[in-house]
């Protein structure tokens, strides 16, 4: 916060929106954390600072020197408070009252206070309506509210919806004056499963507890009035921060950890067999034991996976040097900015992704960034810029690499792909620009007119793509001619268990990730229609092209779709269009551990990885979108 203020003071002219937002966010999160821990003075001060910045952020007021001075004074007090909490075993000492009073006084003088105070809760409420509409003015930020902290179970697969439901149920009881994080962020899943809701209208503790008790997947609820815990319910033993601190860190051999993860994964796969047996033999005791074993195996698997998390920064350190070296060889200049290196990801993914990432960087400098003189001619700074940004969203981590170079020309890529015989002219013509950009990921493609030693012969981009997809991730390219390109590597945070549908076609069994299937429908030959380029089925009045899975995989097709038989159609969506794959039958749904394929199997189009099913058989994991 201090750094932002000093920067703002130094900069002449209007306040930089980004910096103002940074300050605002920092104040907001300190306020949220302090409130959840019951530090009232810290909460009040952070809140006052937030309100002071609000009109500046909204563009209603310029940032004056006197406001900056007041903010700096506030930040000083805030630091003292936080240091006192640190040193004094979690007790707030010292007083922020004077500075809060000065801030509030200045707002009253300017007449901005009510507007700012009303705008913030309404925004936090997220539904566009003023939060405390029933009692305007009485639910101001300084009025006492009941704060309810709710923690969603780490096992919940949809914390966003769960969080949304908590907000919904509690707002049936009392107006939610404020929620941290705001509802919009919760709906997107951008939170750590902890919610802090401030309720107006003084609902009774028991009423709040009863409401929360009716919601599944909540592991802890804590109700505070005036900073004091008045009620707390917890499904799991409460771990105090003191115990957490005492938890010792030990070093463990990576291979040992790997074998623990593999072991837990295998147990999870095996339990499908046990469960089936228990169900067939109608053995309730066995079934009960399997259910408990499942829970323990899940815990073990999760725990071991969490132990394998490592900050992405560890593989990023060398990237700026790599970029500069490539730049030097090719007579260019480049600066590299890295953001979010502290975000953690499974070490197994980290190791595999290092090579591809280096390739993306080399490629960006070699093909993207222009020579200094060209850049200056085009009105750009002589030195190119590479921005590597890591963000986390729920169980996914995105690595984005943006350059401000020449960008890629979809038309040039189309032509080049046709010349190289990668695709024919008809197909090139129907590709939209986004699809055309994806052509650079095909084996043997290179956009450079001359092949260079640095990026090689376009080997690489295809490996980047297949590696990312092998982990169940996504690789995306965006580009604007003259402005630069953006490569997005979206990766799961851990080698997760994937829910798959097991489908038979002929003698073989394949696994298809459940989240890639829109629906599965039973079709008989009568439902199959002949269309110019093959077969199709009608679903809800919509004609969906369908082809047998075996055919898509280049396997012999036992029977044609028009023969008299019943098949299952797996409807998937690919680039906005629906299509169906026909399989003989569905064997069920399982949770499996997926492993990426090694070379050369990795090159098989449509096969994303390999897994073992309950009986130990290896089964290919398909990427249905690739098969259509």
């Amino acid at each position, binding site marked *: 916060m201090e750094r932002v203020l000093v920067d703002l003071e130094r900069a002449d002219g209007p306040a930089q929106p980004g910096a103002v937002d940074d300050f605002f966010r920092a104040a907001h999160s300190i306020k949220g954390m302090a409130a959840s821990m019951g530090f009232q003075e810290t909460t009040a001060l952070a809140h006052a600072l937030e309100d002071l910045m609000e009109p500046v952020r909204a563009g209603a007021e310029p940032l004056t020197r006197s406001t900056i001075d007041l903010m700096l004074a506030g930040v000083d007090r805030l630091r003292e408070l936080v240091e006192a909490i640190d040193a004094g075993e979690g007790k707030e000492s010292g007083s922020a009252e004077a500075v809060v009073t000065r801030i509030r006084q200045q707002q009253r003088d300017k007449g901005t206070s009510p507007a700012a105070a009303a705008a913030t809760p309404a925004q936090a409420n997220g539904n566009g309506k003023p939060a405390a509409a029933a009692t305007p003015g009485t639910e101001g930020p300084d009025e006492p509210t009941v704060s309810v902290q709710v923690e969603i179970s780490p096992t919940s697969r949809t914390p966003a919806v769960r969080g949304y439901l908590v907000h919904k149920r509690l707002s049936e009881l009392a107006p939610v004056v404020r929620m941290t994080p705001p509802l919009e962020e919760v709906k997107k899943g951008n939170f750590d499963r902890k919610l802090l809701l401030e309720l107006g209208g003084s609902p009774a503790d028991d009423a709040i507890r009863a409401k929360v*008790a*009716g919601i599944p997947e909540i592991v802890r609820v804590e109700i505070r009035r005036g900073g004091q815990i008045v009620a707390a319910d917890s499904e799991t033993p409460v771990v105090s921060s003191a115990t957490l601190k005492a938890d010792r860190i030990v070093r463990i051999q990576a291979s040992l950890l790997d074998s623990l993860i593999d072991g837990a994964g295998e147990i999870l796969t095996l339990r499908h067999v046990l469960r089936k047996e228990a*169900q067939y033999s109608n053995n309730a005791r066995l079934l009960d034991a399997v259910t408990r074993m499942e829970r323990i195996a899940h815990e073990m698997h999760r725990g071991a996976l969490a132990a394998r998390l490592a900050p992405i920064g560890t593989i990023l350190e060398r990237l700026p040097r790599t970029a500069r070296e490539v730049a030097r060889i090719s007579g260019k200049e480049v600066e590299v900015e890295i953001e979010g290196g502290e975000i953690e990801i499974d070490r197994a993914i980290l190791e595999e992704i290092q090579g591809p990432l280096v390739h993306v960087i080399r490629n960006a400098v070699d093909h993207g960034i222009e020579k200094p003189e060209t850049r200056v001619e085009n009105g750009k700074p002589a030195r190119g810029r590479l921005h590597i940004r890591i963000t986390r969203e729920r169980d996914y981590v995105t690595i984005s690499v943006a350059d401000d170079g020449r960008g890629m020309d979809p038309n040039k890529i189309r032509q080049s792909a046709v010349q190289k015989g990668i695709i024919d002219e008809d197909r090139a013509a129907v590709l939209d620009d986004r699809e055309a950009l994806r052509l650079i990921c095909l084996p043997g493609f290179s956009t450079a007119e001359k092949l260079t030693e640095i990026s090689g012969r376009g080997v690489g981009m295809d490996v980047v793509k297949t590696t990312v997809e092998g982990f169940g991730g996504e690789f995306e390219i965006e580009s604007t001619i003259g402005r630069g390109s953006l490569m997005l590597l979206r990766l799961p945070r851990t080698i997760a268990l994937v829910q798959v549908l097991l489908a038979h076609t002929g003698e073989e069994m394949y696994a298809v990730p459940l989240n890639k299937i*829109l629906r599965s*429908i039973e079709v008989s030959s009568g439902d199959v229609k002949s269309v110019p380029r093959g077969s199709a089925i009608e679903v809800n009045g919509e004609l969906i092209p369908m082809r047998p899975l075996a055919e898509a995989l280049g396997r012999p097709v036992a029977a044609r779709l028009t023969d008299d038989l019943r098949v299952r159609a797996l409807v998937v969506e690919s680039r906005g269009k629906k299509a169906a794959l026909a399989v003989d039958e569905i064997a069920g749904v399982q949770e499996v551990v997926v492993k990426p394929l090694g070379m050369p199997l990795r090159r098989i189009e449509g096969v994303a990885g390999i897994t073992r099913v309950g009986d130990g058989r290896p089964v290919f994991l398909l990427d249905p979108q690739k098969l259509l």
Partner: protein
Amino acid sequence: MAIKVLIVDDAVFMRNMIREVFTPDRFEVVAEAANGQEAIDRYKQHKPDLVTMDIVMPMMSGIDATRAIVEHDANAKIIMCSALGQEALVMEALDAGASDFIVKPFQPDDVLKVVNKVLSR
């Protein structure tokens, strides 16, 4: 008295999987429906204590059916059966009056936990 359940899903195999969860010791599956309109009809006919509702179905979606059922009976207890990636649809369903949700694929245990919470309200 057994808790009366209506299972709504267009996929037979999903309906069967859900049926297995509702063991006869506590539950009675009084009807099944394969689309939204059928769900409304069966609901009015059987007045079940609990409905499990698929979201994406032909003819009428689970969200529209939920809206219609809740309009007919404000105390209807409807649990949406969703899949990962359908978060926005589930939120819409909750706004339409659904009580809670489960995420496919599920373990019988997970479903029963949600069912118990919903019935306890």
